[in-house]
């Protein structure tokens, strides 16, 4: 949708859009294409209301000069990147993960009995918990050291992820019914079982922050779905370089359905699993 239909909100002009986009890009590397102007307008409008500002030009000046500009830049990034998500999103890919990748991991990691999975851009945690349940129900990793780490640039969504309590709508996929036995209905909301919760940790991270990413251990599988859309080419390359550094040889990287590394990097090989296409960090030739 390329047009704002909002009836009584100040319009985000092209000029203010560019200024805000460049400022946000400088702050955290998120990049919004021209056609995303109206999404930016809709997502930032509540910020203007919260600050009592009358237009986007005032908001730009606030972000440039106000004493609270750093906190507000984070709030803007959060508003712009927070998307509603749900359990068992992109079933083909999750089937590839459960039926093909996990069995491979069970063999390749059998010696150390350790599995590390990174959900980069985890939003409110549905993806990370889905992964945890798939690992658990595979029955391949009983007694293993399992660590599933979900990170996001938005702090607000991490609080929701840590709480692990979801409404009915988070289970909108038919496949997510299979997950339901790992939740308890508490006060009308579905709360994740402790046996799953303890497999998952959440933390705040900007994927472009090399220092923060540097603190991460190596991962066997990285999920980074529908996150790259917020980066321009140089930023994508940086993120992928970081992923490459953090992925063990032969480890898998799963991107969103419409995302490809074509013309971005040749550091990963495209693997045609039976259920889906995934990327893998090549094993160095001896």
């Amino acid at each position: 949708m390329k047009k704002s239909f909002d009836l009584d909100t100040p319009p985000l002009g092209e000029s203010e859009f560019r200024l805000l986009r460049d400022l946000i890009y400088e702050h955290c590397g998120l990049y919004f294409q021209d056609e995303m102007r109206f999404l930016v307008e809709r997502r930032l409008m509540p910020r203007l209301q919260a600050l009592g500002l009358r237009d986007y030009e005032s908001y730009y000046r606030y972000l440039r000069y106000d004493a609270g500009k750093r906190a507000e830049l984070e709030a803007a990034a959060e508003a712009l990147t927070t998307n509603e998500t749900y359990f068992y999103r992109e079933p083909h890919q999750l089937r590839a993960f459960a039926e093909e990748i996990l069995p491979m991991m069970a063999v390749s990691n059998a010696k150390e009995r350790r599995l590390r999975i990174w959900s980069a851009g985890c939003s409110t945690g549905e993806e990370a918990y889905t992964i945890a349940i798939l690992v658990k129900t595979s029955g391949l990793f009983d007694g293993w050291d399992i660590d599933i780490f979900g990170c996001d640039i938005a702090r607000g969504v991490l609080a929701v992820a840590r709480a692990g309590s979801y409404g009915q709508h988070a289970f909108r996929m038919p496949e997510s019914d299979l997950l339901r036995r790992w939740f308890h209905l508490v006060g009308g909301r579905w709360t994740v079982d402790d046996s799953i919760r303890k497999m998952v940790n959440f933390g705040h991270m900007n994927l472009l922050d090399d220092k923060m990413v540097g603190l991460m251990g190596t991962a066997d599988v990285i999920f980074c779905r529908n996150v790259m859309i917020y980066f321009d080419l140089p930023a994508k390359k940086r993120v992928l370089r970081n992923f490459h550094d953090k992925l063990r040889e032969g480890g898998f990287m799963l991107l969103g359905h419409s995302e490809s590394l074509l013309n971005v990097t040749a550091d990963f090989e495209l693997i045609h699993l039976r259920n889906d296409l995934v990327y893998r960090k090549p094993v160095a030739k001896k």
Partner: protein
Amino acid sequence: MTRSANASERARQAQDGDEETRYQAIATLDPVDDQELALLLGGLGDASWRVRLAAVERIVNASDASRALPKLLETLDGGPSASSRNAAAMALGRLGSISVPGLLERLDSPTPETRTAAAEVLGEIQDRRAAPALIARLVDPDANVRNTCAEALGKIGGPEAGPALLAALPQADTSLRVAALDAMARLQVVPPVAMLSELAHDRQLRRAAYRLLGWSQESAAFELLVRGLGETSRAAREGALAAIGQQRTRHVRHALEPLARMVRSLGEHIAHIGESCLAALGAEDPMVAAGALTVLGWLGDPHYAPAMARVAEDEALRPIVAEAFQAMGPGVGATLKGTLGDLSPGARTAVLAALARLGDASILPGLVEAAQSPEEAVRSAAIDAMGRLGDLRALPSLMDLLDNPDPEPATAAAAAMVHIAGRSAEGRAAVLAVCRRRGAAPSQPPALYRVLGQVGDPDDSVVIRAAFSAGRPSVRIAAARSLAAMGERGAFSGPPPPELTEALDDRVPQVRAEAAKALGAIAWASHGARPTQPAPSNELARGLAAALRDEEPTVRAAAALAIGRSGMRALAPALKELATEAGAAAEAVGAAVRALSELGMADSIMLERAASHPDPEVVKEAVAAAARLPDPAGTALLLGAAGHARWDVRRAAARAIAARGERALIEPLRRLAATEADPLVAEAFADALRGLESKGA
């Protein structure tokens, strides 16, 4: 074992009967080796899609992928199977522009299949060099070639593609017309409505013809769209709906009112149109759904509302759902009771907000519940909706929210209360009553002062002023902002209260900054839009002069702006000092420049210095001020800024040149408009040029 010793084994594996073995082997083949390249090319015809795709990957990712080009083109010409030819086409498309010369040659191949495949890949590559050859092939003897060339032109675009497709329409056969119309839709090239009306008589062309009306500027397009809504074919109706959705994205709502009237006047056909719109709400193309929502809104039947509400699951369509509900009127809410609980929080809140705009009081409990949501976006939308609803029964919940330790819901609640107060005298009285009751006790939440500042009477300033003695800085900040808001709306004028002047010495920088801003606002309220030279109190002048030297840039900037707004010309020297101070923060320098300009005391030397400041916001302040500078230095500064490296400074220069209104700038402007590469800036120069030319006419 050496690589060459392994070669025969890899060759064997690449042709093994087991799919997985072949797949693994293909991934190890090296396209640099002629024999292995041959195996990879053979892999393009493998029975398994995985193996074929793996072969494509290996070939296109080779360090010298161009080596494979002749063989890939050969495979495209006459590969052993359709699979191998398709895989070769994919590889050629992935190789991009280096494939173009070979593909252009194949557009002249005697084999229609090769010409078709070449045209298809050229469309994928989107290299404009291919356009003339594709246009020439629109009269190819083979229908598939003609159609594929039209599709490819739709993807490639460029100045010649649209006119060529339009010119081909009258003589074209039906299938080429379909392809050409689809291509024109991609390019947003629209034939005249009369031509589309004729084309829409052809059953096979209807969908494409109606779809194109979305881009039409002709008023006659509306009549044809109404015809489209009544079509018996679902595809044709959806073409018309997509066009209505498209029209809606291009215009403000009321511009489509003539079309809405036509739709409403369809009498007995309305029910049929409603049902077909209902079916189209689930269409994959969001434009079709947007059109269907728009039409259902016009029809106004609330029974359609539950299905429409479910479309709000798509965030992009939420505003259109809201707009459609608004068009339907207040009866909508009653039909949605059973639906709201099934919606995701975001969709539910969007629907509640839409109902709030309609004044449907039955949704208040739902809004109160959503206002407690852990999700910020849902929470803030619900609180905002409570304000828009304007129902006074929301006030107790909003008052509770003012106490929320999280400033965001508290601020949103304050904004909602201001909204309620603005809707009616009764609302204002009720809001003020609850705030005054609370305000009588000390140490109130900051958001309460926000409401009083934006709604209260001059008498309420007593309560606000008392808040300056509060221990919490957030309350003192809120009090200063509150007085500023009163000043902005003229509810507080005359001498500034001593609490504000004293607050310029507050230990918290933000309190000092907000106090300075409030002083500026009150001064503005006292002197109107044209600042005079009042005789400010000695305390105020001293306070603001001291604030200009504050360690915090935000305080310095706020003080500078307050001086400008207060008309305190006596403090101009201090402003000039700040504007030219080495190392001063950009915010403060920019504010000093603006203040001097407001006082009419900006000079060319200071502005030239500001115009070379590294911060573009300071440069833009200098540019804006230069528009008012009477001497020729102002002109020179503006022309210099028009060539600045940053687009936003050049755009500011264009606006300032227009504001300056000097006809001598017409010629330079013409040159700038002609040579500017950035479309946004070029448009600003062109606007400025038109303004100056019309001024002299």
